[in-house]
């Protein structure tokens, strides 16, 4: 019997490798053509992809729709900006953002985890909106203007030092951070613990009868999602040099949900595909008209009606069949070679 989760994750990894390949080719082209705009746009797409990844952790694996995931993204971004304005240290900013989002995620989880389904969606929506409004009205946090003047960073990475002002270097750094986050989350869901989370999504009432705690895994799932959002959020001010309360508002959370649905719910990698697609779409449509919301809304509704599994969902089943066939062939070859019986 083949492990479906294992096959599914390997298919995701293939898609991840494809995205990496495409990304690196585009980067090579951009460097060859001396472009910085598309490099920075690509970096932004990846950062927003981290937020979308965090939404997919909750929606695709925990079965919980969060309409306020931008809260943690914003917290990460604000903490990072506050630290960087005082001490321009990459590692300190990342550590502080991680610590604060961990704490915020635990508090938010304690509140949101009391409810399920639509109540969960609405309470996460409310939490983000209220915190965003408080930030919007707090002068110490820059109020409606946000925090500006985040210095251009020099990031020491062991042997080399890269500058956040260098589009290529910062793109590669962001790509590395996303790769680490993706790998960590993908690994987490293949562990027995991750399988309990997936089981909870399938049938919450049955899991306790098998002797598992339901509250704990869901809580950890929520906090992990918050951390992913917070860590990628911390990269945002390094790219843009400022943070604004809009980062936390519903538009950001809603965008992340759109990205996940476009890319494919429950695939982890779909979030990144969706983020790249939506960011570039916005940039292209936005250069013709400021009314790009209509285009995005129409595409989004079409995706839900006619392509409910997203881009990845269309291509994934055939890839999975291919992977299974490949497994069977290698098994057969091994049995033939060693003469053992299956």
């Amino acid at each position, binding site marked *: 019997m083949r492990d479906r989760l294992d096959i599914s994750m390997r298919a995701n990894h293939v898609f991840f490798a494809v995205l990496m390949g495409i990304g690196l080719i585009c980067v090579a082209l951009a460097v060859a053509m001396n472009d910085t705009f598309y490099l920075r746009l690509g970096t932004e797409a990846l950062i927003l992809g981290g937020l979308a990844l965090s939404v997919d952790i909750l*929606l695709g694996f925990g*079965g919980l*729709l969060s309409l306020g995931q931008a809260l943690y993204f914003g917290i990460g971004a604000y903490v990072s900006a506050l630290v960087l304005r005082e001490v321009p240290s990459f590692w300190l900013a990342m550590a502080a953002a991680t610590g604060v989002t961990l704490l915020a995620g635990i508090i938010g989880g304690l*509140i949101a985890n*009391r*409810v399920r*389904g*639509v*109540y969960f*969606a*609405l*309470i996460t*929506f*409310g*939490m983000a*909106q*209220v915190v965003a*409004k*408080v930030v919007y*009205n707090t002068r110490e946090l820059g109020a409606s203007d946000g925090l500006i003047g985040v210095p251009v960073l020099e990031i020491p990475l062991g042997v080399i030092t890269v500058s956040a002002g260098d589009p290529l270097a910062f793109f590669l750094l962001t790509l590395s951070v996303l790769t680490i986050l993706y790998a960590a989350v993908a690994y987490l869901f293949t562990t027995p613990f991750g399988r309990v989370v997936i089981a909870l999504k399938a049938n919450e009432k049955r899991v306790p009868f098998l002797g598992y705690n339901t509250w704990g895994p869901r809580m950890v799932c929520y906090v992990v999602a918050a951390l992913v959002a917070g860590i990628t959020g911390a990269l945002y001010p390094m790219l843009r040099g400022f943070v604004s309360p809009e980062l936390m508002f*519903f538009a950001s959370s*809603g965008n992340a*949900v*759109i990205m996940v*649905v476009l890319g494919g719910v429950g695939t982890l990698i779909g979030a990144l595909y969706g983020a790249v697609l939506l960011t570039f779409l916005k940039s292209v449509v936005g250069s013709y008209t400021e*009314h790009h*919301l*209509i285009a*995005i*809304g*129409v595409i*989004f*509704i079409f995706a*839900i*009606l006619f392509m*409910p599994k997203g881009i990845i969902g269309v291509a994934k089943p055939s890839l999975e069949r291919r992977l299974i066939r490949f497994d069977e062939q290698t098994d057969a070859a091994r049995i033939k070679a060693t003469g053992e019986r299956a």
Partner: protein
Amino acid sequence: MESYLHYVLAPQMLNGLALGISVILVALGLTIIFGLLDVINMSHGEFYAIGAFGALALSLSGMNYWVLIALVPLLMIPLGIITERYLIRRVYDGADRHVTTLLVTFGLGLILEDILKILFGPNTHRPANPLPGATDLFGIVIPTYRLFLIAIGAVVILAVTFVVYRTRLGAIVRAASFDRNMAASLGVRVGWVYSGAFAFGVTLAGLAGVLLAPVYSVFPTMGRDFILLAFTVVIVGGLGSIWGAVIAGIFLTQVQAISSLVISPVWADPIVFGVMVLVLMFRPQGLFGRMGHA
């Protein structure tokens, strides 16, 4: 002390009541759509904005405001029926109804908001007040229009409750939402009941938009700010409960009104939200159950 009561506390509470009635009107539509169709309508705020803009546009073309109060909600009915037939029904029987219907209406909200921006521009409009001036109510001075808002809102809320709980039509609708197969086998045209219930909720949002246009400014994203409060009211009252929405609506707006006398109004939102969290701690399903289900 007497003067504080007369000139500060009482007007503040009455203004809070006017806001509360308005929020209840918006929340009623949300809660009816959820209670009867099991759908969270994320585009509800945009329907509310459409009502306000409809009133604005028609009054600019010279129509009487009092006609608009009846006309604009009627114009919302086809919009509601089309949305239910061609968007919600398509995903209604899918695997995860709550999430997909929520997402579809969210997408619709994006489109509607941008259409409003294209038609009316992003700026804020201020329609003329049909009842200018203030009324002296037992020594408490309050803008006349707000008094009218409280009165008509109360009438609408009572009428809606009466229709849902005390008439044959309401019984049919509740039966269809409780067990649609059973209702269908008794001859109820369930498809029309669902369209009608959704259109009814949208109509209420439109009505709230018309009524509130003279009090609050009209702008394309006006629904977004208001909808958070309406959602909070619906959650505290219990999704799908009409009385829950009424009680929670009045309670929360009074908390907001009175607390903003003592502290900065900026913190009123977090306090209201804090009340919601507290309620959810002890009653995750809200204060009251769902209509047709309890």
